[in-house]
């Protein structure tokens, strides 16, 4: 019996670890700002002016709120591993992963447009789908560079599946998103990766039902 866990080649574990590390990074940033505001109040002591007191307290309130939002996102992400297959709102999933992706130090701007009025519901493995969308975002960040702006859009299809389109890459780094790793994750949940000929955009074609996608 082999008791060894291959951490390096465990895509799910690597993804879980990477996202949690970036969340901890974000929480440290939030605490750092609160710490600076408190430190400034301490530095000023009784010499503090009313305006400065208001600014510092407002910053502390805003950062605490940002902390609550981040912890809520962390909680949603953690619970995505609860069920192997579950019906999920695709807009919520993409929204969460964009928020988590933006914590990365090399993240550039993301515009989530073409959000459908009625959000597509898909039956899938939420954790794996999140992993694939996250890999897509990381790929897009790396391709677009720090000044780029990535566009993400969801297009529901009449047959029940939905296309998640990633675009806005620079033309200098034309390379393929489809790799052994991403193809493996996509195949496990019946998702097709369809790339534009010029490699400036690609779609993740998410089936309405994971089993239907696998058969396809």
């Amino acid at each position, binding site marked *: 019996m082999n008791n060894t866990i291959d951490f390096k080649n465990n895509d799910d574990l690597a993804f879980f670890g990477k996202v949690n*590390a970036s969340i901890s*990074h*974000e929480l440290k940033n939030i605490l*750092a700002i609160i710490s600076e505001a408190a430190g400034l109040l301490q530095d000023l002591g009784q010499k503090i002016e009313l305006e400065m007191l208001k600014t510092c307290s407002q910053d502390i309130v805003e950062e605490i709120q940002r902390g609550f939002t981040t912890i809520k996102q962390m909680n949603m992400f953690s619970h995505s591993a609860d069920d192997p297959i579950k019906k999920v709102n695709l807009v919520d999933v993409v929204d969460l992963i964009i928020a988590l992706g933006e914590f*990365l*130090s*090399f993240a550039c701007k993301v515009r989530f447009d073409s959000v459908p009025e009625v959000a597509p519901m898909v039956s899938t493995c939420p954790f794996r789908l999140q992993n694939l969308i996250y890999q897509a975002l990381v790929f897009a960040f790396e391709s677009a560079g720090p*000044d780029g702006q990535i566009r993400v859009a969801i297009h529901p299809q009449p047959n029940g599946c939905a296309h998640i389109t990633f675009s806005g890459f620079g033309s200098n780094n034309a390379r393929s998103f489809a790799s052994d790793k991403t193809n493996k994750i996509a195949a496990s949940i019946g998702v097709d990766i369809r790339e534009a000929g010029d490699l400036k955009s690609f779609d993740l074609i998410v089936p309405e039902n994971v089993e239907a996608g696998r058969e396809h």
Partner: protein
Amino acid sequence: MLAKRLALRGIDIDPVFTGEDAIVKAKSQRYDVAILDVKMPGIGGIELERKLKELEPGMKIIFLTGHGSKTDYETGSINAKYYLAKPIQIDELITILQEVTG
């Protein structure tokens, strides 16, 4: 806020909120030290370090980071000589500033 805390300790500091603004400032004035976050709006800290060094090769760079990603780790432990993990201690930053400015 960090800028105000440094100013209260007698350090002449020009705070900016983006990498692009830092480059504009560095083109118009000579600075001894830049204190950079790894993650910033627009140009990131690592790219900004390279651009600032082109403008002023002698400029010392101090990185502040939450040390939560591979990129941050590499910046903190390999590339950056001066590196502080958040939340920073102001006295530690002052010590480094004194060290780099001689």
